[in-house]
């Protein structure tokens, strides 16, 4: 009697993450492509010399091809609620517009706040969505909606974009973690990001220059000793798995080899290793260094980098504080966009500038603006996104969306579609059927290239 058909996939398939067309190379053949095709956990060259991401793992031709097709995500999270009126959707001279002017950008007819002069010069690479209505003015729920594409509901949690993309797009053999969150004072693994995808796809928080915890070899453990003890470990594994190999044992054994590679390149997390001229271009303040670090990590093949900029929750003195915060943001952000474009990386990198919500058109007695989810903006650029487009409109004084209202669901669908993924599909190889995007969402077609 045949075994009954089960809907869940064999456990042995679960850890082969490559599902997208660009990544049909399985890990087995990746390993086989190494040095002579011996399968198993031996990575003899691990730790010797400098190994930079995929390019030294496999033959150069394949490396170039993969690198060219590898897609990345760069998320700027403006923590606290960036004011759309002081950034992407200014309304100068109105009762809600505040004191700042609007300035022309590199896209004729498109104006943004005078607080973003350098960004204005990159406008031809960016697109704006000015008609976001998430109806959410709570920090936590707002962040969840904009990052996971689903409203926060009790008992349910969905993966953030970075975790989803790390799961769906990160190359199986990569030594670098798939998703890193750069934030001042950051450290640790953010398991909540990955939800049911599991901690492997969670973001790892780092601060500038400081690698993830325990990445550096402790004093007293020489590199040579580390190599020999790992040789012992591999030998033990070879014996054990000779007649017991599963995807799990392979994943576990291989993770040590990946870590060894990463240890050799621990300085990939250290932005001070960039040339001094580059460090100067980006600036010595936190956000500037974070942008440079993001560029460094993306160049090395990291799949998703999220940079948080704090803080925008300006219930008091909104204008003074936006001068200060956007003053920090504008130039390094514009520099990074330009650099990505110059290096040919912008086409394969999806860039988002998002926040939990926007800020009220109404100016309160403390010259502040409060939480506002009803009519605000996000900016996007790069992979799969139109250039210089403006989607949607708010009314004259920004108190309501006038055209093309969208929310977190549509945006999430759009992020995925821009990367060449189908948000209506279920996550592959998951032990229950869960669609990637909210079934009630639709991508914003006019935003997609």
């Amino acid at each position, binding site marked *: 009697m045949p075994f009954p058909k089960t809907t869940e996939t064999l456990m042995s398939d679960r850890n082969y993450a490559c599902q997208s067309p660009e990544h049909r190379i399985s890990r087995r053949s990746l390993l086989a492509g190494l040095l002579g095709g011996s399968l198993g956990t031996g990575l003899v060259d691990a730790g010797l010399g400098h190994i930079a991401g995929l390019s030294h793992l496999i033959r150069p031709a394949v490396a170039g091809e993969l690198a060219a097709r590898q897609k990345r995500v760069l998320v700027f999270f403006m923590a*606290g609620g960036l004011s759309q009126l002081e950034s992407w959707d200014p309304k*100068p*001279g109105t*009762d809600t517009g*505040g*004191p*700042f*002017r609007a300035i022309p950008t590199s896209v004729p007819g498109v104006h943004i706040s005078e607080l973003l002069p350098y960004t204005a010069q990159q406008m031809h690479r960016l697109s704006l969505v000015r008609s976001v209505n998430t109806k959410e003015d709570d920090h936590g729920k707002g962040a969840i909606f904009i990052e996971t594409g689903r409203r926060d509901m009790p008992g349910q949690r969905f993966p953030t974009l970075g975790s989803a993309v790390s799961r769906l797009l990160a190359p199986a053999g990569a030594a670098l973690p798939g998703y890193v969150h750069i934030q*001042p004072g950051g450290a640790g693994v953010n398991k909540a990001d990955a939800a049911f995808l599991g901690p492997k796809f969670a973001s790892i928080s780092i601060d500038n220059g400081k690698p993830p915890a325990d990445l550096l070899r402790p004093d007293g453990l020489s590199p040579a000793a580390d190599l020999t003890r790992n040789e012992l470990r591999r030998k033990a594994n070879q014996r054990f798995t000779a007649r017991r190999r599963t995807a799990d044992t392979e994943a576990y054994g291989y993770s040590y080899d990946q870590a060894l590679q990463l240890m050799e390149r621990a300085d990939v997390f250290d932005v001070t290793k960039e040339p001094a001229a580059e460090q100067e271009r980006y600036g010595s303040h*936190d956000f500037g260094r974070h942008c440079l670090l993001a560029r460094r990590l993306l160049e090395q093949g990291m799949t998703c980098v999220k940079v948080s900029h*704090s*803080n925008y*929750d*300006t*219930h*008091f*003195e909104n204008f*003074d*504080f936006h*001068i*200060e*915060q956007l003053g920090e943001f504008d130039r390094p952000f514009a520099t990074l966009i330009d650099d990505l474009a110059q290096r040919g990386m912008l086409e394969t990198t999806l860039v988002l500038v998002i926040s939990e919500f926007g800020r009220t058109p109404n*100016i309160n*007695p*403390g010259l*502040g603006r409060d939480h506002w989810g009803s009519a605000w903006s996000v900016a996007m650029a790069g992979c799969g996104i139109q250039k210089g487009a403006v989607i949607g409109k708010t009314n004259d004084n920004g108190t309501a969306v006038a055209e093309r209202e969208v929310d977190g669901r549509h945006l999430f669908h759009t992020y995925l579609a821009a990367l060449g993924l189908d948000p209506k599909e279920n996550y592959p190889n998951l032990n229950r059927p869960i669609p990637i995007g909210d079934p009630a969402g639709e991508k914003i077609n006019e935003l997609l290239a």
Partner: protein
Amino acid sequence: MAEVQPTPAQPPSQPPAPPAAPVMADPTQVRQVKEFKHNRPLFAARVDPSGRFVCTGAQDKLVARWDVDGDKKLELAGHESWVRGMAFQPGGELLLSGDYTGRLAAWRYAAEPPQPPVYTIEAHKGWVRAVAFSPDGATVATCGNDKLVRLWSAADGKPLRELAGHESHVYNVAFHPSGGHLASCDLKGVVKHWDLATGMAVRQLDASVLWKYDPTFKADIGGARGMAFSPDGAWLATSGITEVSNAFAGIGFAVVVLFDWASGERKQVLRPKENFQGVAWAVAFHPAGFIMAVGGGGGGGALWFFKPDQPNPFFEFKLPNNARDLALHPDGLRLAIAHFDNTLRLYDMSPKPAA
């Protein structure tokens, strides 16, 4: 209202005469006597030397001129953004106002119908935060977000001098009553004393109690929101917010910091007996020797009267709304206060007539 002897007209080149001995103002009897309604939150208020007009800046592009004792309201148009800094020319006919695009405008404010500015200057990159007149009415000082203090000829707006050295936004500027000296205060509470003969900063006073870098929100809050010299030049007062525990919610206390000008020492931190959560937006000296300040915050608006030697006010008056600026009428009895609720209010400190 009590009788006031008129101030004799003075030629502009001489410093104004001290006001004739007024009826004694009694702060404890302060009361509202008039309201002027605008259509946007007010931001600034100044009374002209003749006492006929109050001019206000608001969260719009206009300078409004109100008749103190009448109903007329004129709008002076010529700015491109909000006006917070303004000053009347002592012994002259000009009002100078600065806006948040950096533009300085000079107005013959008494003209009717209202005339466009006599001249406008792009005085600063970014906001003009304050405007002050020299006691002789010849020079205008402005300061702003480009970290500069600049001096201009009042007559034609010609630039006279640039005073550089501040390392953050300059919030306020004031001339010493003696004439040759200027004080400016920046975001971090650095007060520079400038010798105008040389254009050099000769010393620094420390008002950093008014400044805080909030590590949670990673932003600075501070600055002298109000600044004034006593008429005899002995004291310098700066006002703002202190002990900020949450910059983005404005949780901190309104205070006035008082310096002995001669020694440069901080002598007092004046604050309401029960801490007032908010900002002391403006401060002014009364010729009789007491200090007045207004504040706005979570608890609404308040008007405080201090003596220089006592940290707590000798009188507090609750205002109907958040207050952003304060100007003393030349009669020494009335106060014009600019409020957030679009309203300019006039208050009277004269002893109430016997019933």
